[in-house]
């Protein structure tokens, strides 16, 4: 078998790469996933989408990504994206001051966030204000159900002729003369690659790249999430308690997802009771109605963090046709549409279209050109 583009990883980044390539008429696109689509971080994430970040690179990429989310909603039947906003609850004077500056910064880049006073917050969410002093509101942000994304994009890719290989772990990439020549599936089947290999395997990129001698500064960062049974819809924006790094989001089905900062060791995916206590105690202080919702499941998914909390996009050093896309530090799903399109641009035009993407090359860590981001939570 000879393939034009081999995509390693069946999460949002791999799927969107396949989608934008197929839409341009590229043939022989094959996607390889070790387990099933969404096994990694996509199927475990909360589905938030925002451009209200604290770095130029994130803000600009995410503005582009949101415009793609809006088109995807029309292009892919079954895909859901609703612009219900994000809301940050601010409980200290320092946080309020910092977010006033943040909002001014975001406004200067065209992201219409604004500070809400206490009585204005109640117009957006049914909240017990308690110690909330003010909030930052982002009406441009939204949410997209990851499960609907997975099956709707899968269905569209099949229509477009993309070959999706599940339970097909890529165990080796054979390189000669500065080019990837083939990949090995499950240590047995060799697949020749005439064009590009895209490594979009989330935290698992590290293992794949290390096998071909490429070091990548990626750290697994396990995060818990819980989901409740369907509950009458009452909260539209994804709402964050900034001080504790806790958040709540309700999807169209009515399920509530609640996450919180609960640091655990890198490889430890044990479920912690302490997480449940923290998440529920903090969120119920502001939304006591959630206490009667029934907990359905708890799980752990990975953020794949880089030292500067910005992604790594681009060809790997010393090989001309291996493209890596990882290190999204908790934002891979929301970024996947623009990243998929930029990988398409690298493959078809030889380079990404946006200047921000060019700053995301792996080499920046060795060159000491780290990027800055301060607004990470959950």
């Amino acid at each position: 078998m000879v393939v034009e583009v081999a995509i390693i990883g069946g999460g949002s980044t791999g799927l969107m790469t396949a989608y934008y390539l197929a839409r341009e008429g590229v043939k022989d696109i094959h996607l390889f996933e070790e387990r099933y689509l969404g096994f990694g971080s996509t199927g475990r994430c909360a589905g938030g989408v925002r451009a209200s970040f604290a770095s130029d690179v994130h803000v600009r990429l995410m503005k582009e990504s949101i415009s793609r989310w809006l088109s995807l909603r029309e292009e892919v039947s079954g895909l859901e994206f609703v612009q219900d906003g994000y809301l940050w609850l601010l409980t200290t004077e320092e946080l309020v001051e910092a977010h006033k500056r943040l909002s001014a910064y975001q406004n200067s880049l065209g992201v219409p966030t604004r500070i809400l006073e206490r009585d204005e917050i109640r117009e957006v969410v049914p909240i017990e204000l308690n110690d909330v002093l003010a909030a930052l509101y982002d009406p441009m942000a939204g949410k997209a159900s990851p499960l609907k994304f997975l099956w709707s994009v899968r269905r569209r890719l099949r229509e477009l002729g993309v070959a999706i290989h599940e339970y097909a772990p890529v165990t080796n990439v054979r390189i000669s003369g500065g080019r990837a020549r083939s990949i090995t599936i499950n240590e047995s089947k060799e697949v020749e690659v005439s064009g590009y290999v895209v490594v979009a395997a989330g935290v698992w990129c590290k293992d794949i790249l290390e096998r071909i001698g490429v070091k990548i500064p990626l750290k697994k960062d396990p995060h818990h999430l819980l989901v409740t049974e369907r509950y009458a819809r009452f909260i539209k924006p994804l709402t964050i308690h900034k001080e504790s790094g806790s958040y709540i989001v309700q999807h169209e089905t009515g399920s509530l997802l609640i996450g919180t900062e609960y640091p655990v060791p890198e490889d430890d995916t044990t479920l912690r009771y302490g997480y449940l206590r923290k998440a529920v105690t903090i969120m119920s202080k502001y939304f006591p109605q959630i206490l009667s919702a029934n907990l359905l499941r708890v799980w752990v998914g990975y953020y794949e963090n880089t030292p500067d909390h910005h992604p790594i996009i681009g060809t790997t050093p010393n090989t001309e046709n291996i493209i890596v896309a990882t290190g999204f530090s908790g934002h891979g799903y929301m970024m996947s549409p623009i990243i998929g399109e930029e990988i398409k641009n690298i493959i078809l035009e030889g380079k990404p279209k946006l200047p921000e993407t060019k700053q995301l090359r792996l080499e920046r860590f060795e060159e000491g050109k780290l990027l800055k981001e301060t607004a990470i939570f959950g």
Partner: protein
Amino acid sequence: MVKLLCICEEITLEEVQRVIEEEGIKDLETLKRRFRVGMGPCGGRYCINTILRMYPQLFGGTAKGKSDTELNVPPSRPPLKPIPLYTFKEG
């Protein structure tokens, strides 16, 4: 007569069979994410067992003698049954 494969999400056997055929679904984990079977209040107790009993009609082949891993049976996640969030509230 309507045959429900999943009571929690009200998914009919007919719909599941149609989509498996149309969308080329070959495994339980993908079926779970497609229809939310196993993700409702029963936690898969009813629907996953029903699906395993109907495995030949749904996916072809047989489920007999195969392990959960071979069949890609979704893992059970806690809690064993739904419990209200107030159980976890401190203070």
